[in-house]
């Protein structure tokens, strides 16, 4: 296998991480909604925590994306 095709395959494999982060982000918002509907009065106070969880889950997906871009475009 030459380097160019290995690069493309590697970038594709790195993109799996983005999908995994999508599951994580969906999980964060899904669980929030689930419990917010049970107790709407407490929901607004937890929005900060919601976005912290979102940021943490999203960051890992973005790192996977950065890795894919580095593999593709770095010389």
């Amino acid at each position, binding site marked *: 296998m030459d380097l160019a095709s290995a690069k493309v395959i590697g970038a594709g494999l790195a993109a799996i991480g983005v999908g995994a982060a999508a599951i994580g982000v969906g999980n964060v918002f899904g669980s929030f909604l689930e419990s917010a509907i049970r107790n709407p009065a407490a929901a607004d106070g937890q929005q*900060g925590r919601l*976005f912290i969880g*979102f*940021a943490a889950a*999203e960051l890992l997906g*973005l*790192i996977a994306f*950065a890795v894919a871009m580095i593999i593709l475009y770095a010389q």
Partner: protein
Amino acid sequence: MAAESKIDPMHQFQISPLAGNLDGSPFVFTNSALWMLIVLALIWAFMLGGMKRQLVPGRWQVAVEGVTGFVTSMLETNVGPQGRKYVPWVFTVFMFILFANLLGMMPFAIVGAHPFTVTSQFTVTGVMAIISFGIVLVVGFWKHGFHFFSLFIPHGTPKVLLPLIFLIELLSFLVRPFSLALRLFVAMIAGHILVEVFGSFVVSGINAGGVMGPAVSLLSFVFIIGVMALELLVCAIQAYVFALLTSLYINDAVNLH
């Protein structure tokens, strides 16, 4: 696949000098600097329009007060009454990121201008993250002295685990400015690349002709509209997340645990 014009999604992030060249002096007026100035001018206009201190606020003043009140209440809930001191920096960061992100999404290419997203550069977001981190360090050591290191030892840690926990907490503390900057700039780059790639699908679909070409173009176009709406949301969320995490880190420095 037939030979076609190559898609170059990274071209939009290139920094090019507008006056002089990059070979000699590092102080060159680039397109990045130009768009930063445009962002500054927009924020200035926005704030000046709303700071008339009318007794009965107009729409503009309500908008400005909404943003300032939003940042102030974010700091008060996360840091406590001492948090008001840090409103200037958090507000600056929030407004700059929000305006730069939104300005980068605007379709200026229709009128021939070349838009540039300032926040898609790691240097820009990195400097903002380092300033946030610097504030945390200075405030932490100023207020608590070397007691600040107790931040790295959670309450009730067993003695045996102490060195390991200390190392892990220290590492997660030191990686904060990096993650803060990386999140913003990669989110911007990812969105713009996505829009660029699907935008080129529209063009090459029309060029391909036939039945399938325009069908693909239409599909890509509809997809871009959805992605654009999502990106506008991401612009606001990233600005909010940056400000929120900054205020949380400041909370660590002010109140320890």
